[in-house]
């Protein structure tokens, strides 16, 4: 479904040039849920943003369902891939009702039966029709994230990119959103790429996980490796250990990976 080969993105020029992503390769099968973990600045979100075309100056190849992506996208091609952002407070336009937010993609893509579609998607993400005319400030964080998921889903895409979708939420809400995401994947046969700093969250939703550090994919873990901590790369092991909670002894062995 998704093939990424030799993806590279650099920002800035001259001396201040930073390679955000270096030679990233990954393949995701249709219906698979793929995770990318890494710390801030590892380039994990940059990969997603290159995929959806927020950044257009990348090098390498990105193929979706066999078709290579160009830097410039046609409006129609955007339908197949949507994204859910981290911050449910920042990803909804504060002056627009839920209805405005959900109708807009339909208007842009000239889809009919807007009202039916909006009501259907609201039910699907676990919000009732009573949420249709609310403003974001009238919603809780979890409800906002459900609206953001609904917005991504309403165009019926095949791939959804999840950029830390639960890291701004309370754990109990996080559980609800994770359950919703895995249920939606099953019913719609969606392909996910999920980016997170939280190994446990990615491990819960994804079957394979790439570990990124400083723009490079250092290792790809299977679900099994993830569960047992039987990983090859030292950086991965350190990340795994840190995710287990505070451990003074283990901390002494931590080092910087450059």
């Amino acid at each position: 479904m998704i093939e990424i080969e030799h993806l590279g993105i650099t920002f800035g020029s001259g001396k201040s040039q930073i390679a955000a992503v270096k030679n990233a390769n990954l393949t995701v099968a249709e219906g698979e849920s793929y995770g990318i973990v890494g710390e801030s600045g590892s380039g994990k979100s940059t990969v997603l943003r290159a995929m959806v075309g927020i950044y257009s100056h990348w090098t390498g190849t990105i193929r979706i369902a066999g078709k290579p992506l160009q830097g410039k996208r046609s409006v129609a091609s955007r339908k197949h891939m949507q994204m859910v952002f981290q911050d449910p407070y920042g990803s909804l336009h504060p002056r627009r009702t839920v209805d405005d937010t959900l109708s807009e993609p339909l208007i842009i893509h000239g889809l009919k039966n807007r009202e039916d579609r909006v009501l259907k998607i609201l039910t699907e993400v676990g919000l009732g029709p009573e949420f249709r005319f609310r403003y974001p400030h009238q919603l809780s964080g979890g409800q906002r994230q459900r609206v953001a998921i609904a917005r991504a889903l309403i165009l019926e895409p095949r791939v959804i990119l999840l950029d830390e979708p639960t890291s701004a939420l309370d754990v109990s809400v996080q559980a609800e959103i994770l359950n919703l995401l895995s249920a939606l994947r099953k019913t719609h046969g969606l392909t996910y790429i999920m980016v997170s700093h939280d190994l446990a969250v990615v491990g819960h939703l994804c079957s394979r996980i790439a570990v990124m550090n400083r723009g490079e994919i250092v290792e790809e873990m299977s679900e099994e490796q993830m569960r047992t901590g039987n990983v090859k790369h030292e950086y991965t092991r350190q990340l795994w250990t840190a995710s287990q909670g505070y451990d003074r002894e283990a901390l002494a062995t931590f080092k910087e990976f450059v």
Partner: protein
Amino acid sequence: MSQSSLGHESSWLLADTPRNAFQAKCQRIYIGWLAFKGNPIAMFGLAIVLFLCFVALFAPWIAGGDGTTQDLANRLAPPSAEHWFGTDELGRDIFARIVWGSRVTLYIIFLVSIIVMPIGLIIGTTAGLLGGVVDATLMRITDIFLAFPRLILALAFVAVLGPGLENAVLAIALTTWSPYARLARAETLTLRNSEYIMAAQIMGASRIRILFAHIMPMCLSSTIVRLTLDMAGIILTAAGLGFLGLGAQPPLAEWGAMIASGRDYLLDQWWVPTIPGIAILVVSLGFNLLGDGLRDVLDPRSSGGH
């Protein structure tokens, strides 16, 4: 929270689940109004502005005359029961002229607003969103306008266009829009990288759509606030032009021009220039207080949380 005690209309306006887009919009405005209402100083400003509108609307009935009838036998009469604010050097009733002058003031305010807001918003948001050469060009033009002192530039425009109220308005508008463009650009720059703009991009929204449907509504409120706060300055510039004889032409009653022609009598017949001065002061103050209150309600930074 139970709202049943607030009556029927407010339960519609405060219902947790609005049934349609119209109700949702009304609720939004109503909640803003509730916040505004809680600020007595802003309400005082609003009262002044509404009073100005009322006076302008019913000027023929309130003034009791057209304000241009001369009565040379009765010139420079002090305030009395017949002439509440006295008469000027041509024996015209100052009260009537103040009342008629409110129309001129409102006219200036209205024209300046409908010219300045769109120009400032479009130039600022376009520059901010597109960036690069467009941004640089538009902002340098803005800088040029920003560099001149307002009254001097307005004077130059009026000198070219010829004196008259419409030209004065045009001159004021042309000298006023630049800060709005800067404001709108600055706001666009912060909005441009927000996730909801990215989300709109990802779903395929065109730049025009992002500009008009996403960014402009966010910049609108701060522009309105700024305009209300600037209103006092606009009124004063208009009065200044009037004072210099470059704005409204006689016999049209314009407060600035009234001060100008009355300034010779300041010491002996103080009411002739003082009354229009007070009128300008009160209206300017009203707009400033209103603007302060609006800022608390509308400004995304102060009302962003809840």
